[in-house]
């Protein structure tokens, strides 16, 4: 236990912190009444509206796209399982042509949907980012955030926290629709809101990132190029684009994790040690 010798700076920070925080913050401890905890308004009307819009835009984009991606997957599986990559057999040529046709169909649909989806995601990321920046970034210290998270009562299950990434959540539209619902009914569980807001913001930014990737790939694979390559091999670029579309729609499999309870069990009363705890 060599903590004391390492902690000179932390002590100075703490002393300044205690002076700056004042008595109002000092009361905001786990189990305290809500009115004594730091107040937060992370979801103004603009955020709620943009969440609803994003959910609708995602649903529009998804219409038809799932079937195309599934069809493409089946065709690719058939192509790979029959070793068509190194064959000029008529069946294989036909299968390659079919894969390219479906692929082009997917690109066209994506190209048509991306502008609306991007505008909506941009609005969500911007409004959520502004909210996080002003409410938490500028008005609060990291310690205030911790106090808010600590406002969970005993045995409270709270909001089911959306898992990182979208594995298990289903469609992109469902994810944003679920966020919309959580935000609408989440007002009573203020302690969970920073986590929810952060998840929404990070998911919006990540979705925008994949949208950018897909758009760049579509741009580099013009329709002409796809047609020209009708008789050639299926390229890694095609696989990469399909992969990105799948990640955008279904999320990354390897980021799957159990849904955690946001409302956590309060530990046994620690009144006995209150003098040894920084509040």
């Amino acid at each position, binding site marked *: *236990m*060599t*903590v*004391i*010798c390492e*902690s000179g700076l*932390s*002590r100075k*920070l*703490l*002393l*300044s*912190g205690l*002076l*700056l*925080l004042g008595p109002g913050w000092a009361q905001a401890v*786990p189990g305290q009444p809500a009115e004594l905890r730091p107040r937060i308004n992370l979801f103004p009307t603009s955020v709620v509206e943009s969440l609803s819009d994003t959910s609708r835009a995602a649903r529009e984009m998804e219409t038809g796209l799932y079937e195309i991606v599934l069809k493409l997957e089946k065709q690719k599986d058939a192509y790979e399982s029959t070793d068509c990559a190194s064959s000029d057999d008529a069946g294989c040529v036909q299968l390659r042509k079919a894969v390219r046709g479906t692929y082009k169909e997917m690109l066209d649909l994506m190209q048509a949907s991306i502008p609306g989806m991007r505008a909506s995601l941009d609005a969500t990321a911007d409004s*959520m*980012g*502004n909210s*996080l*920046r002003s409410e*938490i*970034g*500028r*008005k*609060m*210290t*990291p*310690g*205030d*955030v*911790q106090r808010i*998270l*600590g406002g969970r009562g005993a045995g409270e299950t709270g909001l089911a926290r959306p898992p*990182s990434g979208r594995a298990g959540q289903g469609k992109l539209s469902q994810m944003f629709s679920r966020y919309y619902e959580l935000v609408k009914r989440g007002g009573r569980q203020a302690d969970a809101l*920073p*986590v929810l*807001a*952060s*998840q929404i*913001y*990070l998911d919006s*930014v990540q979705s925008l990132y994949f949208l950018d990737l897909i758009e760049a790939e579509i741009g580099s694979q013009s329709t002409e190029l796809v047609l020209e390559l009708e008789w050639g091999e299926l390229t890694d670029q095609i696989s990469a684009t399909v992969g990105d579309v799948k990640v955008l729609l279904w999320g990354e499999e390897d980021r799957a994790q159990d849904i*955690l309870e*946001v409302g*956590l*069990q309060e*530990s046994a009363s*620690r009144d*006995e*040690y209150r*003098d*040894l*705890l*920084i509040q």
Partner: protein
Amino acid sequence: MRNQRKLYGSLLAAIGLLAAGGCAQQPRTDAGHCQLSATNNVERLFLEVSEKLEDPLCHYSYPDYRQQLVAAAKGSPGAENEARFAALLRESIDLGVISTRQGQEVFSQYFDPEFYAVKSEPRSSCTSLRERSELEVAMRRELEYKREGMLEILGDEERFRQAQHYFQDLNLVFDAVDAACTRST
């Protein structure tokens, strides 16, 4: 001349005696004086430390005592260890071995699910998260202390799980706030 020699001789003798007397007043430096016995009995070890700390000369051994106590408590985990450490920290504060803040810091780092490194940051989130990596390192180190304190010393899995949740949730929020603050600049 002869008298002068006698005087010098007396002076030297007096200085010698003073020096000898002075040495007798120096702190005892024998190895066994402040050492703890080689017992694994946690309660006895805490009592021993408490007794040793009554002697200000043993205050220098405080870091060693803590290490030994932590090691012994790990060998006999249980909820009662929290009270033992709390009592010892209070006593150490009262005796002036450590400051109140140091006592609170150690206790929080080991036994409080919330993060002392986060509590002690006085700046706004946007500003403090410019040094996000330092905060993350401090939190990660503190999580190690909490693992030692809550799991190995207290055997309290639920409390450690709570600390892990704090760690996870705070990092998620800090990721988002850091990105939001950076995006605006």
